């Protein structure tokens, strides 16, 4: 026993020595300006390979459904063999990009800035991407995909987080997020919400309209008090939540089986439920507006195959292909000309693809930072605080 204690003691001492030895007094690094990186100067020949991180459904190569394939034609045309790693959340994507083993990523707004400021992605030379010129204008030079007028990626598509409800169970056709916040008690145990700290912005958005005295202007620029108010609202909401969702099939199945009757959703989920025709649901963009996501293809600063990546970005934003992706995934295409190529003729209307007013109501996912993302100061709460609060909310 004594020898065990002695051995344990030695091990601990060795560990402590190791820790101290391996530590240094490095500076934490800023966040004030992204590292200086050069965009690609000129487009050369393809390198023969491309490693992508993408949301599920963004880079289909026929391996899941032989008729759904826009990667194989790309491989034939460009000579770049594509390997896709599906990222399940923005946070995973940020982590994967950090390894430097990928050439590009389809980053949502809550990942893009983190990548830019960490120096994981390079600025993009938009003149090398011909299809960029016809990208819908209100997606260019936005806070989540550019810094000081320099674009860091090529827009892919966007969508809003909508309010969805089961028509049979929720008979009063809600038009406000209050249905899942202050009035959520009506459907206690059957409310659902998106399982990510970024959902705090939804609560903040609701508060910005219902409690203007808090002074919330932008749901991603929250001071500590504003953040706490949003957290209180979410803690109250949790009492009524049946379960949170972060994957489509879970959300679809939850509505179809009656586990959830009302909550945040993506259009694609409503479409799947409609196809199955087991329950009837309706989606609405509530009067307070909504959060959403706008995805951008970004090039890794350590990309081993930058030419292939640029070719991919041009390919995926070409009218026919962008239409294919948008229809498969269920989102608004970034390419304005894609609307002529969708198989469903009124696809763009349903998704409000070129409706700037509709798009302006959406508060796209952006990574909250200490320096307020709406430029109103530098006393805002940063994303890691949001993560801690989120874990507190879930308890």
């Amino acid at each position, binding site marked *: 026993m004594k020898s065990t204690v002695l051995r344990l003691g030695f091990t601990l001492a060795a560990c402590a020595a190791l820790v101290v030895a391996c530590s240094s007094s490095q500076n934490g690094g800023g966040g004030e300006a992204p590292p200086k990186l050069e965009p690609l100067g000129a487009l050369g020949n393809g390198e023969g390979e491309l490693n992508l991180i993408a949301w599920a459904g963004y880079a289909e190569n*026929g391996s899941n459904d032989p008729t759904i394939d826009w990667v194989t034609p790309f491989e034939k045309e460009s000579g770049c063999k594509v390997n896709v790693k*599906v990222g399940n959340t923005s946070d995973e994507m940020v982590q994967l990009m950090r390894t430097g083993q990928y050439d590009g990523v389809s980053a949502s707004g809550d990942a893009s800035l983190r990548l830019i400021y960490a120096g994981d992605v390079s600025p993009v030379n938009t003149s090398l991407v011909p299809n960029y010129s016809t990208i819908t204008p209100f997606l260019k030079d936005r806070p989540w995909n550019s810094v000081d007028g320099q674009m860091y990626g090529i827009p892919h598509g966007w969508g809003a987080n909508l309010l969805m409800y089961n028509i049979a169970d929720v008979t009063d056709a809600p038009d406000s997020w209050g249905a899942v916040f202050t009035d959520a008690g009506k459907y206690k145990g059957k409310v659902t919400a998106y399982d990510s700290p970024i959902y705090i912005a939804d609560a903040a958005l609701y508060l910005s309209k219902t409690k203007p005295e808090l002074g919330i202007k932008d749901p991603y620029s929250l001071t500590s008090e504003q953040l706490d108010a949003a957290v209180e609202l979410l803690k109250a909401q949790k009492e009524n939540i049946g379960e949170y969702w972060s994957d489509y*099939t879970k959300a679809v199945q939850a509505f*179809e*089986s009656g586990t959830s009757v009302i909550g945040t959703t993506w259009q694609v989920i409503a479409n799947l439920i409609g196809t*199955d025709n087991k329950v009837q649901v309706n989606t609405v963009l509530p009067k307070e507006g909504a959060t959403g996501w706008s995805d951008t293809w970004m090039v890794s600063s350590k990309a081993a195959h930058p030419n292939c990546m640029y070719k991919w970005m041009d390919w995926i934003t070409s009218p026919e292909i962008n239409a294919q992706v948008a229809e498969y995934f269920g989102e608004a295409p970034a390419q304005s000309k894609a609307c002529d190529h969708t198989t469903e003729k009124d696809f763009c209307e349903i998704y409000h693809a070129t409706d700037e007013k509709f798009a302006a109501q959406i508060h796209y996912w952006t990574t909250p930072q200490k320096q307020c993302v709406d430029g109103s100061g530098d006393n805002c709460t940063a994303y890691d605080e949001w993560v801690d609060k989120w874990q507190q909310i879930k308890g």
Partner: protein
Amino acid sequence: MLSAGARRTVKAWTVMVLVFLYAPLLLVVINAFNTSRTFAFPPSGFTLHWWSDAWNSTGMWTSLGNSVVVGLGATALALVLGTMAAFAVQRYEFFGRNTVSFLVVLPITLPGIVTGIALNATFTSALGITLGLATVIVGHATFCIVIVFNNTQARLRRLGTNLEDASADLGATSWQTFRYVTFPMMRGALVAGAILAFALSFDEIVVTTFTAGPAVQTLPIWIFGNLFRPNQAPVINVVAAALTVVAIIPVWLAQRFGGDPATTRI
């Protein structure tokens, strides 16, 4: 031995537990034929469509192949290292023998997420190795060693040293003793251990998530990834149903040739 009442009770209990064990698996099989894409119950219809989708899914076959390769690699490593360790512990007295046993058991008892994070931190920050199939095999081998070790050690303990001593007395070298006496007796334990190790490696997802690189997809990772895809979830039921049915074969073989079931160890 036990009274009739007791025998009836445990028999009824056994049936109940078996129902408990197999009801969800039955549901999986049902869903493999369900027309609904989202596991809804009762099934909305019968279809073989998902089976043909699964058959044509190159993603599924590639990841299945990767899983088999990883499983075989990890099992092979585990067989060698686990048997060596089992022999050392069981047939020799030495200082730190208990520590060795303890150490070997550790990888499988610590939660996967801890092992996964640790290996990932080591591979990427400390060693700067690119993650790939090899790193997955290393991760899996580490907990597969335990399984082979346990099974082999248990069998060695039961066998005792009588026959080995007799063989040595009759003039055989250690290698000959091992080859002609010990190994044939131990073979069953090795088979049982190898099959169980393969099974655990095949279904492992947590450690794999942290040690697989960009190009590597094992079957559980493919399944996890496809659960998120809009139209592919039922294909997974097909794969699971097929695997479960197919798996009965090696399990049966393991038990038949593994010899005494009482020495089966995880």
